[in-house]
């Protein structure tokens, strides 16, 4: 099976963990990238949002009733002068184990239209 490499959008999804209250709308709109754990809280796929899913990611961000989901520009790995988040254990994986990664872009879809045939904004 040939996996078509998904183009990177340079954006990633971030969850405000304190504000998040397990509404679950995000996972309904972006099941490719957001899973819910057994208590209803989001597990976001690691890495940047692929280009073909950015539209849906924006809709997912809009759909959160408490604005806990954000789409932010991905940072360069270590920026000079910026303390990185403090890991206690070495090379803490930046994903939760077992989280599926973002799916590849489906081969048959035209890249100009968002999935589902909606008009792009």
């Amino acid at each position: 099976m040939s996996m078509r490499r998904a183009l990177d959008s340079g954006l990633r999804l971030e969850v405000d963990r304190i504000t998040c209250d397990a509404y679950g709308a995000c996972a309904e709109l972006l099941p490719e990238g957001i899973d819910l754990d057994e208590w209803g809280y989001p597990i976001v796929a690691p890495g940047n949002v692929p280009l073909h899913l950015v539209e849906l990611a924006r809709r997912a961000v809009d759909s959160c009733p408490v604005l806990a989901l954000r789409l932010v520009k991905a940072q360069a790995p270590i920026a000079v002068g910026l303390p990185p988040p403090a890991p206690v254990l070495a090379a803490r994986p930046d994903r939760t184990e077992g989280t599926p990664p973002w799916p590849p872009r489906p081969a048959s879809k035209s890249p100009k239209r968002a999935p589902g045939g909606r008009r792009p904004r």
Partner: protein
Amino acid sequence: MTARLLDGPVPAAGAESLADHRARLGDLPGRAERSPLIAMLESAGLLGRGGAGFPVGRKWASVAGRAKGDAVVLANGAESEPLSHKDRVLMASRPHLVIDGLELAAEAVGARRGVLYVGSEHTQALAALERALDERAASPSRLVPRVPISIATPPVSYVAGEESAAVHFVNAGDARPTTVPPRPYEKGVGGKPTLVQNVESLAHAALIARYGDAWYREAGRAETPGTALVTVTGGARPGVVEIDLGTTIGEVAQWAGVTAGEGSPVLLGGYFGGLLAGAEAWRLPLDPSVLRSHGTALGAGVVAFMGDEVCGVTTTARIMDYMAGSSAAQCGPCVFGLRAIADASARIAMGQARQDDLPRLRGWSQSIAGRGACRLPDGATGLLASSLRIYDADWAAHQHHRRCLVRSGMARATA
């Protein structure tokens, strides 16, 4: 063991007075003779001692770069890791060294205000710091500009030591972590760039300001230079000791009078750290870089020898219960995840395991980390994962056979 921070009278002698402090260490060099401190800290390679191990010079530089003379320095003496006592001992016996570090930091980053953030139950440390501030008010030094320093006393809780929690407490009286960004060095106390630095790191900086970065680099035996305070438990001589970075775990065991056999489990870093076992582990140097390349860390400088008579499952279950109860109750994965872990591990420890408890425990040890606003769930699951590895046979015996290998006297294979 090299004594630098703890050079001078023994900690049991109490707080060192201002006069003794000045007599023993001399006054700070005047501003003109002092090299720029941030550059010295960077070349000395001083790493933070609060648990993250971030380079101190770089942290000060990032605050200095943002401050317009209105930054805040917060000396973090919350010491919320229950197994750690080093910060308390340091504050109670060398308060002036800590305050020197705070004042030097304020000068270096351009701060107009200092805060000593000390857990409300650390009474000796608080008394020593208050007395020290009074002494300095009575005879101020003309060599370092004075900044107003207040003392903030959060309730002692695990999350209160987190830097956003410290800022939140000073701003709003609520010692619970907040969502970052913005991080404290961008927007902290009063909305100003705030340097949150562990008290031990500040004390090291105060000595580097006097003696230079080359002096600092003279200590240390492996990759990272300098000395560090560690809290050692599990031996005949428990307590706080200053070690050269690079001292091996085995050497610390010897110093502390640990009777358990070589290779018996060690908890490194405290509740927020991880378990190690085996002869190679005891040969590991207590050096942040070396430990990181082995997938572990010095953390808050706790070296707790567990011994062979301790049931690792029960100990881990009790720690998980403590961590679950320490949650700030703000983030679902932490609240529900840690409580599920605590419940399952308590059941397993008491021989009441449900069929899927152990597999689910393994799953949770991976799926909860990184999904809270602070690092509490990461620390708890890190410890859990290391316990599941080191005490693998014990967990299996408890889960499947309702039997404790330690209590039944069966020989345990160390990992």
